[in-house]
């Protein structure tokens, strides 16, 4: 076996797990064993993939031995490998969490197979080097996430799911049309090959297509002004599903933007990336203001996803105001990638905490909650760390993520986005403090009697809910106080992104141009 096997494993393993757990759908135990085992293997495989990609360079596998650009290639550069590693971590921790958090009814209706398909779809989207294949992975993800969203079939879920599916189908149609136009212009679907053909092509059509991709991925990422589907749907499904969606799904959109707008659409940076920059600023401001008005635990967290996406877009948009090969550009992209990593960890963790709170007190409404600091100090501490990390206080991961993005903004002389970036950080703190005051600090409201289980002995079954939260909290602390190695990897990823020739050479689509005219 060659080392390239590593590239296909993160896609192959979830599909094998999905098939096995579909065939054992009658047995809850077997499904759980496959769930934990399959995601553990995925986690290990993704660790090895990142390690190998970091040390040996970009890995490429040509599916079915069809040479690029004719066949589909899977490519693992550092950005892909980092995102796949995050998929592995999230898959594993959320499956552990759902062992004690998920209703057995859901498990009967295919919770685990759908989870595996979702992991496979996300990993496929991160790894593929073919733009039509990217569309296919988005659809795999959409189908799996739609089915997970409606598991249980309550009224609120249906309402959220309809908005979710409708807007995502609109996004898919735009995506598909853009692929069609791009194929018409370049005659290829391989992303590296498209990048080669588009180099120096100063056609206004390219910008039009770039904007179509931006709208499509912007919808998927939840960016301004097309984010309204996200707060309408993310708080409705079972909490483990919400946590996985919140952590991973919007980031696939962000990843796709990072990939497209560093590899392919780099000719009209002033125009396209400026739009991304200001969309990012508006996204973070509207997201944080929307969250300030909410009084439901999961809704606050959901709307905050949007404001966090803004920082990632801002990092990408800063390329409009720097020389693309400069260190500022590398810092901006590395900051954006580090922000994605930090946000996946912290956001998922906050959702997991809200699930524990709901199990203890039976509600997500802030007005019905309270008194947890007195009864569950350890849980309060876990929430406190993640909340401060989300708001960006040192020495946690959120601080360094924001620091890198803001610093890049300063070096690119973009005072207004930087100002809003800092302001939004402060407002995020307001929302987090609001949750802290209501849920943990103040005593329980008088008309809500304290549930028995608050004072009872510690229930050993909840270990499966606490373990992932503890692990992710440690991760956010480590990414802060000992973040240097992680940031080094992000910087290396940023350097790969500003120099697309590495990616193009690894895929090498020009080697087989004996059929085309040979541009």
């Amino acid at each position, binding site marked *: 076996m060659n080392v390239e096997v590593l590239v296909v494993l993160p896609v192959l393993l979830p599909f*094998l797990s999905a*098939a096995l757990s579909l*065939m054992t759908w009658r047995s809850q135990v077997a499904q759980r064993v496959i769930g934990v085992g399959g995601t553990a293997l995925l986690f290990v495989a993704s660790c090895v993939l990142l390690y190998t990609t970091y040390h040996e360079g970009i890995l490429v596998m040509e599916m079915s031995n069809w040479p690029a650009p004719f066949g589909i290639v899977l490519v693992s550069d550092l950005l892909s490998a980092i995102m796949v590693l995050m998929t592995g971590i999230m898959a594993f921790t959320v499956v552990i969490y759902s062992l004690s958090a998920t209703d057995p009814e859901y498990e009967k209706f295919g919770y685990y197979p759908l989870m595996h398909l979702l992991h496979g779809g996300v990993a496929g989207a991160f790894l593929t080097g073919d733009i039509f294949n990217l569309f296919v992975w988005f659809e795999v993800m959409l189908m799996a996430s739609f089915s997970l969203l409606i598991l249980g079939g309550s009224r609120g879920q249906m309402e959220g799911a309809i908005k979710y599916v409708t807007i995502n189908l609109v996004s898919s149609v735009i995506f598909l049309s853009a692929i069609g136009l791009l194929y018409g212009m370049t005659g290829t679907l391989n992303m590296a090959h498209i990048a080669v053909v588009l180099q120096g092509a100063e056609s206004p059509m390219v910008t039009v297509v770039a904007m179509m991709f931006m709208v499509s991925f912007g919808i998927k990422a939840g960016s301004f002004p097309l984010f309204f589907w996200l707060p309408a749907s993310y708080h409705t499904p079972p909490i483990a599903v919400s946590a996985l969606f919140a952590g991973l799904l919007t980031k696939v959109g962000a990843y796709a933007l990072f990939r497209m707008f560093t590899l392919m659409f780099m000719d009209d940076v002033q125009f396209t990336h400026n739009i991304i920059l200001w969309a990012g600023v508006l996204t973070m401001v509207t997201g944080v203001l929307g969250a300030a008005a909410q009084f439901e635990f999961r809704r606050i967290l959901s709307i905050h996803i949007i404001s966090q996406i803004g920082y990632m877009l801002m990092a990408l948009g800063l390329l409009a105001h720097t020389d693309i090969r400069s260190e500022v550009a590398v810092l901006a992209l590395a900051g954006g990638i580090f922000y994605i990593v930090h946000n996946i960890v912290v956001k998922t963790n906050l959702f997991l905490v809200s699930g524990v709170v709901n199990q203890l007190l039976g509600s997500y409404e802030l007005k019905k909650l309270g008194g947890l600091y007195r009864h569950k100090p350890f849980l309060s501490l876990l929430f406190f760390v993640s909340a401060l990390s989300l708001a960006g206080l040192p020495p946690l991961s959120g601080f360094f993520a924001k620091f890198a993005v803001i610093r890049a903004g300063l070096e690119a002389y973009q005072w207004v986005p930087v100002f809003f970036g800092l302001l939004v950080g402060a407002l995020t703190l307001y929302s987090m403090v609001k949750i802290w005051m209501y849920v943990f600090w103040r005593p329980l409201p008088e008309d809500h009697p304290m549930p028995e289980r608050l004072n009872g002995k510690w229930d050993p079954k909840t270990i499966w809910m606490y373990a992932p939260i503890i692990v992710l909290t440690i991760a956010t602390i480590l990414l802060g106080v000992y973040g240097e190695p992680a940031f080094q990897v992000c910087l290396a990823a940023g350097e790969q992104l500003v120099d697309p020739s590495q990616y193009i050479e690894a895929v090498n689509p020009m080697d087989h141009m004996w059929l085309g005219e040979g541009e």
Partner: protein
Amino acid sequence: MIESKSLILHTATRFLLPLQLLFSLFLLLRGHDEPGGGFIAGLVAAGAIALYLFAFDVPSTKRMLRASPHDLFGLGLLLAAVSGIPALFLGKPYLTALWWELEFPFFGEIKLSTPLLFDIGVYLVVIGSVLSIVMTLAEAE
């Protein structure tokens, strides 16, 4: 549930079902080089079983199938995913086609390959997914 008492439909279905299933196998096996393949063959087979479902009812269709659509779906996905793995052990990319030609005394030469396995997997996935949709709808009525 659709209640069909039509004698003609009952009788015709009994004759048509095996014919359609045979035709789907024919499509499945010829599909590598000529029009056909796992997807279209799976649709034909699922159509045949859906016809049986309309002529009779859900319980008897389940009895005739023996396996549940979920199992078919899972088995198909497994076959399709596994069919790409042997190539990995030979140091080739995932899903690379491998062929074995076998000589049999009476049948002559038979070609076995990993794409055939993949096609069978697709065949089962299509049957499984179409039937689970059709059966859910039929049961919901």
